[in-house]
């Protein structure tokens, strides 16, 4: 398995993701500059967090038109795996690879803290092997994280088991207080209908190194390593 991390002007979590996949998960990993048009034979693409193009116009709106994204969209349409984290999630929704969009947090504030999330989908690669009875502590850092989609889309997400995670409290309770950014149904991550594209607002790569005293992020990333190369 070869992992590729896209890098846009303003990406700032690319190095963290690279470090985790290379040094902790011991994977073959390369960075893909946004002006490139080839995925260099990567099997799994990760679109990392940050502020691509300064979040101008809308978060992710401009990055979506970078040359590398044509290759990412083609890869996803062929059934290839893609994970977008935070700004990467925003880019994937703008690119139409994931349903819905991410609005300004209901508090109007940038929120940077440890969030608790609960896996929902039992059929997606990322969450299927997780314990649905426990919650995972994963950092969030975003201003535009309020997941929104039309009523019909939300129903589709539910009908097809496409909700990856919901925000909860430290005891795993899904409450309005734990839904700090105001997302519909406390949604923290979704997948597409084919379940090969994942989007997460929380940052699992920030919870993998033991030095950080929280390695819950590994639970989210390790299932991805079990993929057979296509």
């Amino acid at each position, binding site marked *: 398995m070869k992992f590729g991390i896209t890098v846009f002007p303003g990406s700032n979590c690319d190095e963290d993701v690279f470090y985790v996949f290379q040094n902790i998960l011991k994977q073959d990993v390369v960075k893909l500059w946004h002006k490139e048009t080839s995925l260099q034979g990567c099997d799994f693409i990760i679109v990392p967090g940050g502020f691509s193009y300064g979040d101008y*116009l*809308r978060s992710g*709106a*401009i990055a979506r*038109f970078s040359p590398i994204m044509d290759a990412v969209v083609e890869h996803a349409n062929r059934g290839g795996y893609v994970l977008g984290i935070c700004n990467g999630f925003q880019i994937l929704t*703008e690119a139409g690879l994931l349903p*819905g*969009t991410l*609005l*300004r*947090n*209901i*508090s*109007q504030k940038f929120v940077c803290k440890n969030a608790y999330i609960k896996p929902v989908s039992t059929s997606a690669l990322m969450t299927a092997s997780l314990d649905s009875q426990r919650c995972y502590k994963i950092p969030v850092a975003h201003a535009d994280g309020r997941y*929104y*989609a*039309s009523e019909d889309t939300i129903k589709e997400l539910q009908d097809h088991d496409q909700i990856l995670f919901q925000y909860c409290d430290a005891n795993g309770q899904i409450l309005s207080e734990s839904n700090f950014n*105001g997302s519909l149904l406390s949604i923290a991550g979704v997948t597409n209908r084919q379940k090969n594209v994942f989007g997460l607002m929380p940052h699992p790569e920030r919870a993998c190194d033991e030095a950080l005293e929280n390695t819950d992020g590994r639970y989210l990333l390790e299932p991805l390593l079990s993929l057979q190369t296509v």
Partner: protein
Amino acid sequence: MMYLAKINIMPKKEILDPQGKAVKLGLGNLGLRNIEDVRIGKHITMQVQAATYEEASEEVELACQKLLANLIMESYDFEIEEVK
């Protein structure tokens, strides 16, 4: 011919606009209590080189749909005038 497009992009009606809500609060604090339903969007102007008004209009329409607005959360309208 050169045309000037003036584009308004607004959050859709059904979407909560917390920025607009906060501004309404501020207006109330100013003593302006008759103001309701404040919503905040974007105004974009651009010049378009086109042979006809229709051609310019098509170009702007495409710009709005493909990049300037996200139709899940925003609606848009625009007017176009000839630059003399």
